[in-house]
């Protein structure tokens, strides 16, 4: 790791830490309790950024997969795979925090409405992506198959986003874009989104670095065997 990378990582960790502390302070101290939703509505300030990171991660996987199939450069495959891994983790968090919020808000943990079902499908698509990558006997073939899934699977992301506007669902509509938040709530949400975006950048750099190291191990093993 060179000094530029060390400086970049230090800045990112410092920024991420400061933003996350600010986000937590705003969620638990600054923002007032929402009148109808009660205290549990505060899940919203992390639930939405977590969903944002999942969408961002799958978008990066989509772009990196296109670039990998085009350029065949291993770095794009590393970024695509790392981002898909993070996307799955954050979609898992969406699928856990959503029901935790739904139970006190709706009286049920889960319902098969369009938003929740398409989110579950999204999670399954990228779990399959990771399984294909890890089970492929030939890593190059696994990378190609993964890239195809990473491109085709991304179709579900806009579908998940638009479900609440296209169909009548239990899930609330996209109130952020409809002026449904007060200024205080909006500022808190934006700080939380910024904090989680920086966290995503830190994780994807770290994880993609490890995918590159895995490729290096494979290369050295082949060299040793020859």
């Amino acid at each position, binding site marked *: 790791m060179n000094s530029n990378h060390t400086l970049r990582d230090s800045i990112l960790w410092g920024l991420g830490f400061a933003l996350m502390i600010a986000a937590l302070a705003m969620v638990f101290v600054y923002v007032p309790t929402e009148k109808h939703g009660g205290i549990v509505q505060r899940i919203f300030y*992390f639930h939405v950024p977590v969903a944002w990171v999942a969408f961002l991660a799958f978008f990066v996987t989509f772009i990196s997969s296109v670039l990998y199939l085009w350029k065949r450069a291993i770095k794009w495959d590393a970024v695509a795979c790392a981002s898909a891994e993070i996307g799955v983790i954050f979609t898992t968090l969406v699928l856990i925090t959503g029901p935790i919020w739904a139970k006190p808000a709706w009286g049920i943990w889960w319902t098969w409405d369009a938003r929740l079902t398409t989110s579950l499908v999204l999670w399954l698509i990228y779990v399959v992506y990771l399984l294909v990558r890890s089970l492929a006997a030939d890593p190059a073939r696994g990378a190609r198959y993964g890239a195809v899934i990473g491109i085709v699977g991304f179709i579900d992301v806009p579908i998940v986003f638009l479900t609440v506007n296209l169909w009548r669902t239990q899930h609330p509509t996209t109130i952020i874009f409809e002026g449904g938040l007060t200024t205080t709530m909006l500022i808190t949400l934006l700080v939380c989104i910024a904090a989680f975006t920086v966290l995503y950048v830190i994780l994807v750099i770290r994880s993609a670095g490890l995918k590159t190291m895995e490729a290096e191990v494979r290369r050295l*093993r082949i060299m040793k065997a020859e």
Partner: protein
Amino acid sequence: MENLGYLLAAYAVIWALVFGYVLFLQRKQRKLQRQIDALKESMEK
């Protein structure tokens, strides 16, 4: 403070999974670095 348990559970799950993933990455990095060092060393012999 009704439903405080749900709020705390949601935030705890987020932090548990994020920290778990960071730990997983750290362990993996150490393991890969050891493998790379061992392979390079064995090839130099």
